[in-house]
């Protein structure tokens, strides 16, 4: 009887424990199988065509803004249309980023014009973020 009570208590407590930091796991992307990985040939240097250098602060600011705009692991809401499902994908958005005043980076997230099949131009589906790259906070968000 006492064991039964203990198990019952654990059943109630464990879901709550998932929210404790100790139980939380950081995000890890999916890795391909070792067989697939073995087929990848890395070049001696990154190809020059299309090469892009994103500096550390800029890259981290973009990531912070995107984590707010479309949080990781977010799933389309119930009954979402195919267009809405497309709008939930991070790759559907272009990003413009530029340094701002001291300690600030502006990150603008804009729906890529050819990303989702629409029945007309879609305006204002993005947002512009002002990121504090010293305290790593979102200072302000401008919708549109």
């Amino acid at each position, binding site marked *: 009887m006492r064991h039964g009570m203990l198990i019952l208590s654990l059943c109630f407590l464990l879901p709550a424990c998932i929210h404790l930091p100790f139980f939380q796991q950081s995000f890890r992307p999916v890795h391909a199988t070792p067989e697939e990985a073995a087929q990848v040939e890395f070049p001696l240097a990154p190809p020059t065509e299309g090469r892009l250098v994103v500096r550390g602060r800029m890259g981290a600011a973009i990531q912070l803004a995107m984590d707010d*705009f*479309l*949080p990781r692991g*977010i799933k389309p*809401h119930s009954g979402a*249309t195919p*267009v*809405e499902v497309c*709008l*939930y994908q991070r790759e559907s958005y*272009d990003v*413009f980023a530029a340094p701002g005043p001291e300690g600030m980076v502006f990150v*603008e997230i*804009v*729906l890529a*014009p*050819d990303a*989702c099949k*629409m*029945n*007309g*131009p*879609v*305006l*204002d*589906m*993005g947002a512009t973020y002002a990121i504090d790259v010293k305290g790593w906070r979102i200072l302000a968000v*401008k*919708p*549109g």
Partner: protein
Amino acid sequence: MRSRGDGMQIFEGLSLACLGLLACASTPGTAGETKDYGYREDGQVWVRGPWGAINPSKDVDAVIDQLCPAVMDLPRARLRDYGQEYCGAIYTLGDGIYYASHTSTLSNARRIGGVQRKSCIPPRYVNDERGRAVVHGDYHNHPYAANDLSTADKQAANQIWSIRIQFDAGCIVMMLVPHIGEARPGEVFRREGKSWKLIGMIKPEDKMDGIMTPVGE
């Protein structure tokens, strides 16, 4: 003991929550078609004209100057995150007089990630029973203050007409002349009194991305 200020904060919070619920509840209705706007068989948006709230004029600017006050009288037009974006058209019937159409709230998507995105589809057709409408430009509001033309508003792929009019909740009116398909740059103007002030250019190489280069004050 709660202060009067606390009481007001609770009241405001409850009011906003109710507005939010109303917004959610009304989404299917506002997302659907009405007698004033809808989808054609090809999926394009049509709107009905003329809109009685706007006096027609031979001067297109006289029509543009009436748009923001009229749209601000529509439900939730300036309610920020709980707000509504409206799209309409400015057109003629070949008689040299400019008219404004009714507005449409049709949008491809409203809720992404639990966030209500403020968006609308510029109409491609105007139905006016008096004749064939020739559309001159589109117009839309942003339900926020200090919120000018977005990058998407300026991107070449999102242009249909000769001009695009946009205004925010404070009735700051902007005009984009995209000059799509032309070698000259696009132009962005802000309405100041009864004139248009050029505030930015969109270089031909930036038209695709909608990047504006500010013009010196």
